[in-house]
């Protein structure tokens, strides 16, 4: 479980000269179009989409791609090595690992997306509040600091000890682990944006705080947030796998990639395919997301290119 790489928020400042306007400025669209173009020009992003897309599509289309129903056991073919019949071998119950990985991916993606989505949402709200309201800043950010004072997995395990196992609790836990990272990012963007002339102007014409934050500040935080989001999604998938692998995450009857891996752990020496293939599924997913994230960062913020 890793910390998402820091995204430089100061660099996401809007063109300072942009006129304060409630109308969507044509330059806004142009900016995104340029970013989109830059994104597609980069080969790594295409590779990232390809790698991630292949695994994700296979998982989403599991009912059609699968070779056997996910729970189907064959007592004749237990712990069978990879073959034409069982592409990735079978486990101790004679279940086809390829099909299990397809279905497990759905669960892993769901948990990863749930955790990343929640962390982004809560982190954004906390970051906006802390950045804009200075009297709340100290309280909120000290709580965030407290959460960040744990190595991520230690906080996750400790929280799961309190909450108990289960898919929902894994989502909550991972969301809590990543929320402070989002909050910090958003807050530092807000601190810069708050002093920009267009925000001052919005305040001068008497807009309410809520409107200023939602209409004028939030849209300018979006691009670093998108970048951070891709990384957090990737790390949530890694996090779920690690927690389930340790036996403190989701229960065994929810066969995520982490669970499939942990089932194979005791048999690695006699049946390496039971751990190698689910690990590869995680690896390719995270690799794809990382490539997309790197590409997005370069496209949305040319100044960081080559970092």
């Amino acid at each position, binding site marked *: *479980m890793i910390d998402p*790489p820091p995204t430089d928020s100061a660099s996401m400042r809007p063109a300072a000269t942009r006129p304060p306007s409630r109308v969507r400025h044509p330059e806004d669209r142009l900016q995104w179009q340029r970013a989109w173009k830059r994104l597609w020009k980069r080969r790594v992003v295409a590779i990232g989409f390809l790698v991630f897309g292949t695994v994700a599509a296979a998982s989403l289309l599991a009912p059609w791609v699968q070779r056997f129903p996910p729970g189907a056991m064959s007592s004749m073919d237990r712990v069978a090595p990879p073959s034409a019949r069982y592409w990735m071998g079978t486990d101790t119950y004679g279940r086809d690992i390829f099909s299990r990985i397809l279905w497990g991916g759905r669960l892993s993606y769901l948990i990863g997306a749930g955790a990343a989505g929640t962390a982004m949402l809560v982190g954004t709200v906390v970051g906006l509040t802390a950045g804009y309201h200075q009297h709340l800043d100290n309280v909120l950010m000290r709580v965030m*600091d407290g959460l960040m004072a744990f190595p991520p997995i*230690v906080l996750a395990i400790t*929280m799961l000890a309190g909450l108990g196992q289960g898919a929902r609790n894994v989502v909550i836990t991972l969301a809590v682990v990543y929320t402070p990272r989002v909050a910090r990012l958003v807050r530092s963007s807000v601190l810069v944006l708050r002093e920009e002339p267009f925000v001052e102007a919005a305040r001068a014409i008497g807009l309410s705080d809520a409107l200023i934050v939602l209409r004028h500040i939030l849209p300018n935080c979006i691009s670093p947030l998108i970048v951070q989001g891709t990384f957090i999604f990737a790390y949530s998938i890694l996090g779920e796998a690690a927690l389930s692998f340790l036996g403190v995450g989701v229960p065994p009857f929810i066969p995520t990639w982490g669970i499939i891996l942990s089932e194979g752990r005791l048999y690695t*020496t006699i049946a390496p395919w039971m751990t190698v293939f689910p690990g590869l599924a995680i690896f390719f997913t995270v690799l794809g997301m990382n490539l997309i994230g790197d590409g997005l960062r370069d496209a949305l913020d040319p100044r960081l290119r080559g970092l």
Partner: protein
Amino acid sequence: MVELIARRLLSLVIVMSVVGVIVFTLMYVAPGDPAVVMLGPEASPDDVARLRRQLGLEQPLVVQLGRWAFRVVQGELGESIFLNQPVTKSIAQRAEPTLALTLLSLVVAVGLGVPFGIISAVRAGTAVDQAFATLAVFGVSMPEFWLGINLMLLFGQYLGVLPVAGYIPLLENPLQWLRSLVLPALAIGLVQSALIARITRSAMLDVLSQDYIRTARAKGLLERVVVYRHALRNALVQVVTVIGVVLAVLLSGAVVVETVFNIPGLGRLLVTSVLRRDYPVIQGVALLVSVIYVLVSLVIDVLYVYLSPKVKYL
């Protein structure tokens, strides 16, 4: 400098208080009576009542928190429910492998990451740079524990050159100790070396574009001298700042990888305590680990100011 340290110490106290509240509260967010949860559903009412008294569960939550914090500050973490010994003792018994593993993986991460970063920066844009960048992305995309399993299969099972699992204490046999830690340290360190390489590279590129580097080259210094004496020293200041983050990740990695290699460290202790619902031990390990982490971050902040005269304030 003194003012900086004082201010950081103050914020450390605040952060640790927050950490304490978080760790303490965890026991109470679990549904049901903590005493029942700890003892399991078959426990007799007498046992539950005794544990409730032992834990002081009759008092209001705030009072309990206060008493708990008071004891913790004095270094008293309570009794392990399952192991029947003080938590401090269980932790002391398990600390060595985890610390050894974390430090060794730091050696791997820095030892590989910094040279790779320098080479990438010096050869920026070439095939070498791209190859390293590709390797780095591969590295950060791998679950450490999975890499650990694969290393174990390759070096332990197929090649048979290193032990598959287990831990030998340093004082018992230093050579075997090292051999038992090589694979787990590689599993954790390789992944992090990718991050350090990235940061070293961008720091080096930053420094290499400075005016004084051009001056150094213009006066005819050897490229080697320019890179290592003039550029690297300044770039390393930036690398030092991320070591705190890296250390947290290494500790995290150690917690998971200990399970793969069956190393009796704090990670194993934490995980088995969760499975046994041994809350005092969980609280103790979580507190200790975060104290170490926060202290290391403090040292690194101070070191950063010391190394970089430009930074007067953090």
